């Protein structure tokens, strides 16, 4: 059990930054529950990103503690009680920040991965 638990925790750590960004981004289109978020991410990524529940729920609770999202129990469209999360004002700001950080990161990685442009200069 302890060992398994460790593995889960490691995965959280690996995904942490990106998962937060994905969750915040998903919630930008409206309040959503945990299942809805995981489905949305899967669908939007074309089934490439499978969000592990063992990462998703800790992330949701962590984001809530940081007051970036807020939760509320509501009845879903098919008459089921579910916990909905929605973005707060600070969460929106955080999203902008994370997005620009992500943009920088992917630019940087792209720069490293495609060094040809630089070498062709001189």
């Amino acid at each position, binding site marked *: 059990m302890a060992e398994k638990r460790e593995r*889960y925790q490691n995965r959280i750590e690996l995904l942490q930054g990106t998962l937060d960004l994905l969750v915040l981004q998903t919630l930008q289109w409206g309040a959503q529950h*945990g299942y*809805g978020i995981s489905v949305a991410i899967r669908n939007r990524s074309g089934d490439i990103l499978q969000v592990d529940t063992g990462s998703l729920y800790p992330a949701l609770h962590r984001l809530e503690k940081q007051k970036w999202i807020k939760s509320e129990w509501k009845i879903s469209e098919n008459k089921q009680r*579910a*916990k909905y999360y929605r973005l707060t004002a600070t969460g929106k700001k955080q999203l902008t920040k994370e997005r620009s950080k992500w943009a920088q990161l992917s630019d940087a990685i792209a720069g490293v991965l495609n060094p040809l442009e630089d070498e062709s200069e001189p």
Partner: protein
Amino acid sequence: MRFPWWGRKRQELDEELQSHLQMAARARIERGEDENEAARAARREFGNVGLVNEVTQDQWKQRWLKDFVEDARYGLRRMLKSPGFTAIAVLTLALGIGANTAIFSLVNGILLVSLPYPHPEQLVSVTGAYPKGAFVAMREQIRAMDVGAYAEGHELNLTGFGEPVRLASTSVSAELFSILGARPDLGRTFYPGEDVPGQGNFVILSHALWEQRFGSNVSILGRSIELGGENRQVVGVMPAEFRFPSTKTQVWIPLQNDPRNAVSFWAGDFMPAVGRLRPGSTLGQARTEIRMFQSRVGALFPWPMPASWNAHASVVPLQNGMVADVRARLLILLSAVGLVLLIACSNVANLTLSRAATREKEISIRTALGAARPRITRQLLTESVLQASLGGLLGLGFAREGLVLLKVMLPSDTPRLIETHIDWRVLLFTGALAILTGVVFGLAPALHSSRAALTEALRSGGRGTAVPVSQRLRSCLAIAQVAFAVLLVIAAGLMIRSFWSLSHVNAGFHPEHILTARITPNESFCNDAKRCLTFYRSVLDQVQAFPGNNAALVNTLPLGGRVSKRSLVVEDHDPPPGEDSPLFWLNVVTPGYFRVMGIPLLSGRGFADSDISGAPVTVVTAETARRYWPGQNAVGKHIRLLDDKDWRTVVGVIADVRAYDLHRNAPEWIDGTAYVPYNSAATLEDRRIPAEMTIAIRTASDDSQIATMLRTGVAAINGEVPVSEVKSMGAVVSEAVSTPASTMTLLVVLAALALVLGTIGIYGVLSFLVSNRTREIGIRLALGAQRTDVLRSVLGEGAKLSLTGIALGLAGAFAVMRVLSGELYGVGAADPLTFCSVAVLVAVVALTACYVPARRAMSVDPVVALRYE
């Protein structure tokens, strides 16, 4: 770690995860899967529900709490792994914290806890002493507060209830109880207007007296008892917790404010006054009013009052007023005990440092693996706070026992001592002390370890070579310990010296083989002087009939705590116009008193039996003779008691007697001391002869035998006269030094503790040094160094530490010992002898402690030492 208060949150999380599963299953069913199959697939896809639950819950905990729990668990495991180290550290801390808690309980109970009366913040004490007349004027004129007055220290005989007893009584103004807000257990307190003659034949009993003497019988209320030869109706019984002005009082009676009796009204008891600020009034207003009152009250007296009388009268909170005398002593003790704790802390810090040296590798590896430094510091601190908390818990136990001991040791007249106990404030203090202690002794090692040079520790293969920084820190701690110990030992040394001078002071009499007792007929009994004198004559005859006894009577026994005043005229020393006649301490004695007490006669003669009825005579002390007749023989000069017709001839001069306390013959307001024979002319300030006398019996027999004989003898002569305060003169003297004795004992105990802890500290540092240098010493020896050189080098190291510590300690003592000067007698606060001998003592003890590890270094076997690697 689970937290029970998360029950609802946990339930909600379960629900949240369940709803996820249901939604996932429903989505599959909608896609056409079989119902059972869908639920199973959804669960498979979800993963381990329990685990998701658990890792999510982890997010709820505060990061620091999670870390703390982890650190504490780890710390506990480590402590259990080395029980010896833990035991020593915890015990050292428990001693330090326990001693501090015990002394703090005293400080708390005496100085901090509010007085046990409603709205204690309104209660004030007027510093100054007022006769009844002045008090009555004050009561009428002061607007800012209600004032009451009390005269403590009176005694009354209770007769008609079995054996006659002497009771301690306090006369109070009628409003005193209501000013304090004290309610009786039974009956009532005094009503306003009951403190004038003819209105107040009442008495209120203390709870203890009611229990012991009246068997807690409720029917005593309303009955009359005979007190001091007068019938007084019992109107109330106070609760056991009521102890005003002190625990001693057994009965309270109303003052007799009688303006017609000018002597008693204006010159009787000079009483302290207490007040309760009226709503809206401030202490400052009360103070101003009292100062203004002081400027006019002198004019009310039927005679001129010196301007110096109550010149500094002011108003202070009652609590401060009551404990002013003990405050300084308690604060000295608190600082001393604080030093002991500092020493204990540095000792444990040193121990922890030595252990940290062996842990350096572990810590380096953890740092290399990415543990953050603050995190490591925090973990080490958690460990030390844990240790200190254990020490605090154990220390609390020590403190409880210590407090019992302290209460026995301290003089019983220490105000509020009986109310002292361990309360929430003490617990808070101990808790804070434990945490602070943990931080103090843990901080140095923690900061140091977390800074430990990573590569160095790893490279040296974890052998724990002496890292110079660590050694320097340890040396500093050892030096600090020695310095603190020196400070405390000097304080103790000064107290010992002072106590020694006090107990070896030439008191002017020989206390050995003297038994004393108070014989106290009612004052009215001596209205008939002849009856009184005959009674005492028979008592003396009875006692002296016993073989080997030699007895005499005196009204105020030296060091007995009583002063008998008398204004008189000294021949050729008429007071300047507008000033009072000199106020003497008049001792009324029977012939033979000087011989019984062993007071040396310097010139002339003592009293003879013929002086009782012969020409009026007196004997003066050397100091008085010098003051009034310097360079002349006082014998043959004359004095005259004020209002007497006849002059008394000085027939003898005796040596000075330390009658007031062991360093003063008389209080400052006394101008001289004279002795007169006990006869009908021997009147005191109230123009009556003393009724209460103390018998001093020089005897070769057993004290208890004589005491029994005295009691039965007096009872046979007059069954209504109590015999009380039966004690040897030696006991009287030691009571006079009981306060310095207890302060001294406490300081000596603390100093011994400090010295032992400091010695252990030096020993520890050197042992560690030697064990770290074993290899180096081995090499030296192998290369041909002499063993004595090794010994000298280690001893030199120790000497350097000790001497630096001693020097610092001496310098510190020089700077701070002034605070002790109020407690010292016959020795200066910077007494060179004490300073030197303490320096030598500490040096010897410290070097002895160094010798053991030095010997071990000397006996290092080079072969073994080198193979050690």
